[in-house]
């Protein structure tokens, strides 16, 4: 079993109203100077060995359905899975915090939203502009440790 990640982004010349809305919301929250374009991430669990042919097939799938190449670009990459049992593999995303095993689907979403936030703040440390700096540092550290 291999995991292939397909990232889909709106082409640069195409207006991205969702990204604009997020950009505006960030600015209102005090995260200045951050411009967002919003895309999609697909995680594909591919059965069997990931040969070149199989990867080419995944690319065809991405081009056929996952992305509309009239307005979007896509990128296909193979994600290394950590050596672990199946269950852990399922949660083996890079930013996973290794919380207790009570993660329902909705928990997952909540956490990944948080994590996304903390990651962003972690990266924007240099700018030192966040009022929640202390907290976000902690979160970023947590994420780093877990990742």
């Amino acid at each position, binding site marked *: 079993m291999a995991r292939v990640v397909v990232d889909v982004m709106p082409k640069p*010349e195409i207006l991205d*109203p*969702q990204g604009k*809305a997020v950009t505006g919301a960030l600015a209102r929250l005090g995260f200045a100077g951050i411009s967002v374009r919003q895309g999609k991430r697909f995680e594909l669990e591919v059965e069997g060995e990931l040969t070149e042919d199989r990867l080419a097939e995944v690319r065809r799938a991405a081009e056929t*359905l996952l992305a509309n190449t*009239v*307005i979007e670009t896509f990128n296909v990459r193979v994600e290394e899975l950590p050596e672990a049992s199946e269950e852990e593999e399922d949660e083996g995303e890079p930013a996973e915090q290794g919380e207790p095993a009570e993660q329902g689907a909705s928990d997952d979403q909540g956490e990944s939203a948080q994590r996304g936030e903390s990651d962003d703040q972690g990266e924007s440390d240099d700018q030192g502009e966040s009022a929640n700096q202390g907290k976000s540092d902690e979160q970023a550290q947590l994420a780093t440790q877990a990742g």
Partner: protein
Amino acid sequence: MAPRIGVVTFPGSLDDQDALRAIRLCEGEPVPLWHGNDSLDDVEAVILPGGFSYGDYLRCGAISRFAPVMTEVIKAADSGMPVLGICNGFQILCEAHLLPGALIRNDVRVFVCKDQDLRVESVDTTWTSEFSRGQEITLVLKSGEGGYVADEETLRRLEGEGQVIFRYLNSNPNGSYNDIAGICNERGNVVGLMPHPEHNVDALTGPTRDGRAIFSSVLNFLAAKV
């Protein structure tokens, strides 16, 4: 015998019944078609109605475009059968590459629902022959992802070849390039538009009866063919 016009119902279609009704009011024979069938039931024209087929998952029209009935619709369109996509149907036609370009979220970032003024830019299609060129009409527009986009070369071609059929008038409600509200393919048998002609066929339920000309155009075309 009145020409048979099919209306495809996808899971999540909303305006299929209104489209069937519009056909009946304009004296065609409405034929309900099911997305999961691979037969067009001997219809002479097909309408893909408005709504949120397959929940608009992935992208509007992206999954419906691969519904079994679409294989037949694409085949029929390629052989010249009149095909009309209204709103979600327009999105499906773009996803199916029967029409160029794509529809993205409104630049105003809200769902727009209004009586929209339009100008008819071309009457050289099977769906618009009963209009007059430059005619100004009003149709209901109700969509969240009605922004028409295409690359510059496609836009130039559409404008140059008279494939822009309807243009938003007075104000652009959704950020569509060149104020484009509806287009057709090179042959003129496939037309897609965001506003809803099927909601504008009688005085009781619509702001105008301007939508009737769409249905009478294709009915006259089909009657003349026989």
